[in-house]
């Protein structure tokens, strides 16, 4: 199962990628929102792990773009946020974000949320 990990921090991307790879997923990485949208089209991942705060396009803008495209409207998304505020969660849920993961985070817990989101979408 292929997962797209989108975060502008290379350390965070590599940490998540290592955990998800260890749990049996294939991982592709993007460092900003624009690259993420390109990779969604070319790599067709089963789920996207998306940071909210990013250059070029932020996480919410990426979610909106994905939801507007019928081909990716149902793509499960797990969103990483710097600090989960009530507004952020509500905005994200309104856009169709499946899971939230506040930073600082545990990659192991993130992997469990990824599994849960994939199970729900299956």
């Amino acid at each position, binding site marked *: 199962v292929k997962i797209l990990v989108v975060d502008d*921090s290379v*350390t*965070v991307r*590599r*940490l998540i990628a*290592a*955990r998800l*790879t*260890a749990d049996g997923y294939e991982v592709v990485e993007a460092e900003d929102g624009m690259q993420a949208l390109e990779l969604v089209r070319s790599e067709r991942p089963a789920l996207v792990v998306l940071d909210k705060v990013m250059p070029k396009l932020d996480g919410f803008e990426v979610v909106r773009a994905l939801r507007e495209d019928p081909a990716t409207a149902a793509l499960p998304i797990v969103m990483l946020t710097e600090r989960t505020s009530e507004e952020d969660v509500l905005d994200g849920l309104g856009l169709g974000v499946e899971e939230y993961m506040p*930073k*600082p*985070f*545990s*990659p*192991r*817990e993130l992997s469990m949320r990824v599994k849960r989101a994939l199970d729900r979408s299956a």
Partner: protein
Amino acid sequence: MTAVAAWTAIALLGAIGLLLGTLVHRRVSTEIRRRALARVSPDLDAALIAHLAELDPAFPDTGGTAMGRRALRTTALGMLLELRGPERARLTAVLEHAGIVVESAGHLGSRSPRTRRRAADALAQYRSAASTDALVGGLDDPDAQVRIACARGLAELGDPRYIQRIVEVAAETAPTRGGLAADLLLALAASSPSTLGGMLEEGRPELQRLAAAVVGELRLADQAPALRGALSSANDAVAERAARGSGLIGDAEAVEPLLALLRDHARPWPVRAAAASALGAIGDASTVGALEAALREDEWSVQVSAANALATLGVPGRETLERARADARADLRGHAIAALDR
């Protein structure tokens, strides 16, 4: 040209040469260090990530060198802010194993305040129980920033033996460095939330003010009774923060003391405005009458807060605003229209 002028020129040239030499030496040394760091960092980063992801049980090997420790510390400090849970505990164990915690603890004994501050900040982030003794010793440091960082480190560790010492540092810090003291209380809130309740009841206004803000922002509902008690503080700043906090928590039992605060005209407007906003946030429709009375006052901020609170109180609140929209007073009409449009 006289001999004096010639010697002055020579001395000047010599000084310039020395300065240039020092700059070049510094630049070359920095570049050598940067390249050495760049050589060891990728392998160490990869080993660290593999270890944290439980792909490799072996600790990353720094080769026992200062450069290796430096590379590992640099990567680790970036990761510490991102991680929690088992991976963070593993990262702390890596730092302990590499001798980085002991090294930073040793730097707390440096003569240079700058070195001690950096060491204390690093130890506060490592959250290693192995640094406890060093952090406790740092509470007596002559430098206030070192004391604060050490207190934060102990607060992060959550060892109950040192809570009173941490509170003392917070009390000493609060009057002049409110932000740093608030950071300290935030760390304490994670490990010992009841300590913040104790601060609210204790009676030192600087600490009460900060504790009220932190309890509210973190929505520490268990501490709501202490916050309620602080609503009657004679200190206006404490009462104001307690009112905001009660609103953020949505403490229904705070309605009566908040109404008393709103009706107390001896209080300055920030306190009464905060009480009105909190009543709106709690959402008890029985407070509509009191908020309407506040809307009809002459204090602009209290009126705005009361109008906005009424807008959140369902049908009775909005009906009150609709009536105010047709009032003869222009200010009332303006506040009502703005609140209804929000």
